[in-house]
């Protein structure tokens, strides 16, 4: 199921429409041949269209009224020729405009995506994924639409109107100019009207997402609804919403049903003028019957270009707002970039030092205060403490997802801001609390750790981490799909895969944010086995929850409120009988209770 992200559309009231419009147009620049191609095709078609009407006039005047069958035959053939020729034009403009549209979307999406890869985590912290998603999808489509179909409609409309008016003036200049006066009136009324209609439809869309929300809640919360006997009142509330939707949807629909008749009636004014004035003129012999019929045809069909232009005009503001959002994304700068002269030290091996580091996400809420820590090469450090105490921040700083606000972090002999981001991040292996997998096969997910790894390397890594066993039982083995976000696998299995991925990367520095959710004991022991492979001879930072990991660490650091409150080995800290002692005994009790699950025993006993 595809989720559509509906957001409150912020209304950009900008003074720089012109600039944005130019930039929107510039998206077509690399493919200007297509642009010129379809614009030429559509211009040609609109001129030929108007000329066709002129031919029908000549058929009447030069053929029928003159009783000249030869002239008639020639004119009919000319008409046929023009029709065939403009069919070619139709093929050209549909093909080129839609290709260009798709291509611009492709370019915009790719540029945005590529830029997103460069942006720092701070950007992701303050921008919801859904917001970014709709920039890349619906906004890109809207911009492309303006450059192609919008531009096309405007060109078609303008040239149609100009060429129609030209032919009308050629036929009878007085009457032509008279008709010409109603065109601006039509355009203004039509444009205003369309804008109202679009605003109404926006309201409908907002209500629609509310309705979806109401259904969502009622369906996923149906058990609570039943238990609390809310059926009647829920229906009452919902029917208020659906009535609102009805009113809004109906209003939008009848407004748009009114649009065409109104425009038609105004243009009928033109028809009336032609009949009256034109009738008089034809009496004077200044307007032929063919000319009269051409006038009627020109006026009748002028509706369509006007309608299309009104639509483009009304939708333009929205497309500009879309474009501004995309451009604002493309223009945002990554906050963490390589400093000038950044180099690759070749390895991350060496001691790691946090020296008087201060850090905050929001200025008034310091997370780390004057934090100092020295970790020796090869050491395994377990970070323990309450949520929000600063453990994850330490790890994020180390990966240089963020940089210290003051103080510095040394890797080996270098301040890590002096080396390149790539050199740091490509040498870190990371296993996260909620392991993130990508759609694709298990093999592809493990290979993510090292792209040039052979199949044997992948399998070796899986064997080392103990993932091999479950993978082989999986349908399709290593080539089995993991599903969207890995949802075909259990959390424990995902963790094993992400461990194998990290092992394959052979990182210099290993970071792990352990899961709080307990996996079953068999998986747990597998994970431990995999871990021991990884931790060997590698500097490791582990945000630890599992007792087995904590105990194994060379050093345990208790972090609370951005500071180190206790530090030492497992036995040292237990002897202290402080915070760690309490934490440990409490967890240990729980763990033993889980391990000695009475019901596992009963099942075993009755088997």
């Amino acid at each position, binding site marked *: 199921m595809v989720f559509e992200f509906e957001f409150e559309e912020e209304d950009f009231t900008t003074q720089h429409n012109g600039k944005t419009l130019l930039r929107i147009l510039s998206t077509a620049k690399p493919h200007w041949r297509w642009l010129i191609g379809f614009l030429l095709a559509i211009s040609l078609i609109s001129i030929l269209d108007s000329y066709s009407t002129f031919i029908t006039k000549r058929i009447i005047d030069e053929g029928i009224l003159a009783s000249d069958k030869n002239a008639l035959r020639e004119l009919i053939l000319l008409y046929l020729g023009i029709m065939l020729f403009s069919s070619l034009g139709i093929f050209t403009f549909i093909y080129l405009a839609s290709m260009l549209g798709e291509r611009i979307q492709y370019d915009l999406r790719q540029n945005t995506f590529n830029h997103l890869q460069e942006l720092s985590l701070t950007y992701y912290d303050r921008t919801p994924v859904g917001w970014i998603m709709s920039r890349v999808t619906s906004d890109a489509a809207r911009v492309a639409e303006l450059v192609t179909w919008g531009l096309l409609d405007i060109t078609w409309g303008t040239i149609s109107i100009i060429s129609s008016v030209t032919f009308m003036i050629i036929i009878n200049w007085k009457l032509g100019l008279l008709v010409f006066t109603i065109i601006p009136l039509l355009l203004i009324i039509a444009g205003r009207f369309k804008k109202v209609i679009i605003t109404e439809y926006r309201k409908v869309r907002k209500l629609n997402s509310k309705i979806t929300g109401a259904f969502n809640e009622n*369906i996923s919360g149906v058990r609570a609804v039943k238990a609390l006997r809310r059926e009647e009142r829920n229906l009452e509330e919902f029917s208020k919403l659906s009535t609102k939707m009805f009113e809004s*949807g109906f209003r939008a629909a009848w407004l748009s049903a009114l649009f065409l008749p109104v425009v038609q009636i105004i243009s009928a004014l033109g028809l009336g003028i032609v009949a009256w004035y034109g009738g008089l003129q034809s009496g004077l012999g200044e307007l032929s019957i063919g000319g009269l*019929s051409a006038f009627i045809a020109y006026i009748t069909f002028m509706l369509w270009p006007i309608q299309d232009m009104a639509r483009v005009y009304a939708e333009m503001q929205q497309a500009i707002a879309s474009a501004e959002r995309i451009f604002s994304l493309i223009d945002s700068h990554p906050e963490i970039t390589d400093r000038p002269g950044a180099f690759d030290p070749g390895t991350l091996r060496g001691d790691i030092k946090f020296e008087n580091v201060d850090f905050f996400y929001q200025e008034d809420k310091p997370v780390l205060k004057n934090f100092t820590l020295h970790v020796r090469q090869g050491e395994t450090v377990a970070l323990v403490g309450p949520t929000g105490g600063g453990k994850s921040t330490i790890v994020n700083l180390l990966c240089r997802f963020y940089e210290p606000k003051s103080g510095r972090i040394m890797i080996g002999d270098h301040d890590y801001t002096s080396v390149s981001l790539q050199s740091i991040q490509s040498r870190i292996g990371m296993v996260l609390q909620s392991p993130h997998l990508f759609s694709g096969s298990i093999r592809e997910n493990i290979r993510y750790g090292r792209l040039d790894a052979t199949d044997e390397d992948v399998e070796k890594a899986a064997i080392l981490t103990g993932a091999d066993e479950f993978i082989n039982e999986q349908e399709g083995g290593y080539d089995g799909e993991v599903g*969207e976000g890995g949802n075909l696998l259990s959390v424990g299995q995902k963790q094993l895969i992400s461990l194998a991925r990290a092992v394959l990367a052979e990182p210099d520095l290993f970071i792990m944010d352990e899961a709080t959710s307990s996996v079953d004991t068999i998986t747990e022991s597998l994970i431990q086995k995999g871990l021991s492979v990884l931790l060997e001879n590698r500097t490791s930072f582990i945000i630890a929850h599992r007792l087995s990991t904590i105990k194994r660490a060379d050093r345990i650091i208790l972090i609370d409120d951005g500071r180190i409150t206790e530090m030492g080995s497992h036995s040292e800290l237990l002897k202290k009988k402080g915070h760690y002692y309490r934490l440990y005994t409490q967890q240990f009790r729980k763990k033993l*209770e889980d391990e000695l699950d009475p019901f596992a*025993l009963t099942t075993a006993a009755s088997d």
Partner: protein
Amino acid sequence: MNIGVETIPEILETQLMNMDHKYLSNPNIVDTNRIRGLWELMAGQRRIYLVAALSIGVASTLRAGTYYLIRYFVDDVLADESQHNQLPYIAFAFLAFALLQGLFTYISGRLAARTAENIVRQLRNYIYDHIQRLTFAYHDKTPTGELIQRTTSDIDAIRRFFSDQAIGFGRIILLFLVNFTALLLLSWRLALASVIVVPFVVALSYYFFNKISKAYEEYQQQEAVLSTTLQENLTGVRVVKAFARQEYEMEKFDRENWEKFLRGKHLFLIHSIYWPISDILVGTQMIAGLGLGALMVIDGALSIGSYLAFTGLIVWIIWPLRGLGRLIVQMSSGLVSFGRVREVLRVEREPLDEGIGIAIGGLVGKLEFEKIGFRYGDQAQILHDINFSVRPGMTVALLGATGSGKTTLVNLLPRFYEYTEGSLRLDGVELRDYSREALRQNIGIVAQEPFLFSRTIRENIVYGVGRDVTNREVEEAAQAAAMHDVILTFPEGYNTMVGERGVTLSGGQKQRIAIARTLLKDPRILIFDDSTSSVDPETEALIREALQKLMRGRTTFIIAHRVQSVQGADMILVLDRGQIVQSGNHAELMNEENIYRRIYELQTQVELELEREISGV
């Protein structure tokens, strides 16, 4: 906007507003074929829809009339100098025709929209209510996403069917019939010669739009793939950065992105072939007609005015036909959506008010289970041979592994599931004889992870109460549930929204809000799911304290996973694979050489191990 325009439809609309909501229970909607079902769906609105269709006919006739006016204008007025004083009338007649035509076009659009919006409003209300009245068993087996799709996008497809497609189809047919008749009246030979191409155009457009809709589906599928790729990248941004895989990700996205470009290209290639071909067909037919007409005029078989009328009419016969195939394809997908909605409507509801009611305070809370068994349809037995009885006010603890049947057993009480064997009596009356409504009003449930609604905290607390509740009562309930102080720390106190647009609550906090909610509901029988997952000891103590207040004087069932939480119960039932293997109070069970004691002994073992671990350091 325009008084004259408003009034006529307005009168018709008032009729619609008084529609009976229950019409949807009409079995023909779900039991007959789909077309018939759609017809039934229009019950009460058919006349309006008919008026909408007729208005199109009137508008088309007026349009045809305009061309007849042109004929009269050219043949009788222009040609005759003495008739020139009629010119102003002709001009006004043009205007009048346009006004009337506009009016009827508008009426048809308005009424069709009104009908469509009304049908879906009722359908939405009905299906919303329907879903909340379907059984647990149905919801257990139906994925949420699927139901949401049927209630939103499928219903919208039905709306489009009525508002755009069916009426658009009618419009094309009526335009054809009216204008063709007008053409026949002008000259039957010319008329027949002008529609030779019609079957070909319809067939061609049907063929192409079938292809187009398939290509479009593929295009949409790729769009979904692209979104997934994007979303995975964005949510996995840490992994991408941690492995420095930006370039790999760009290539991956590029592959999917390019594939979408290619599919778009394919889709529009079909379009760019279809439109010129159909243009050539239609255009040739028109030009041939023009030529034939012209010859007839020269030979004196047709007047010049008729010729002009012909050239106008022919346009409205042939060009609209090009869109017919598209409409047919769209309508058939609308029918598919309707079929999917019907599948939901077909499922039987559980009646809430059938059975004996219970007066306020009329329930004592005495329960007797006798040989109770339960299974879903013909699936394996979930509960068997459950025998026990409960005195009013007693606390019963159910102990057992996941899947042992604890939750199913308590779900029998509010008749969420119906026991399939044995007899269960509440206050001496068979449970099945009570109405579900009465039972659910008198039974309170606090789930392990209670569902909260995206409303304010206050609204969540009063959610289950069918009367007005004062702020004081709400606060007292929250205080008793040890939640009041926490709520006050939220930005807007009791008016803080829960969920995405407000605060995110922890499992323990949700449970305490559910306790407050249940306190206000004041049920006689209470069910509490105590399988606490990851609540810290402090919160656990708070919940326990709140629970004690809630349990006072009520028959209570506690679903437990650990021995510690059941020791105080009056009766402990140990369940294993749907059967009671042990029952009694803590002291009694400790005297039996069985599971319960083994479980309890493990506890001591835990403490001993802990001791050893610490002293071993």
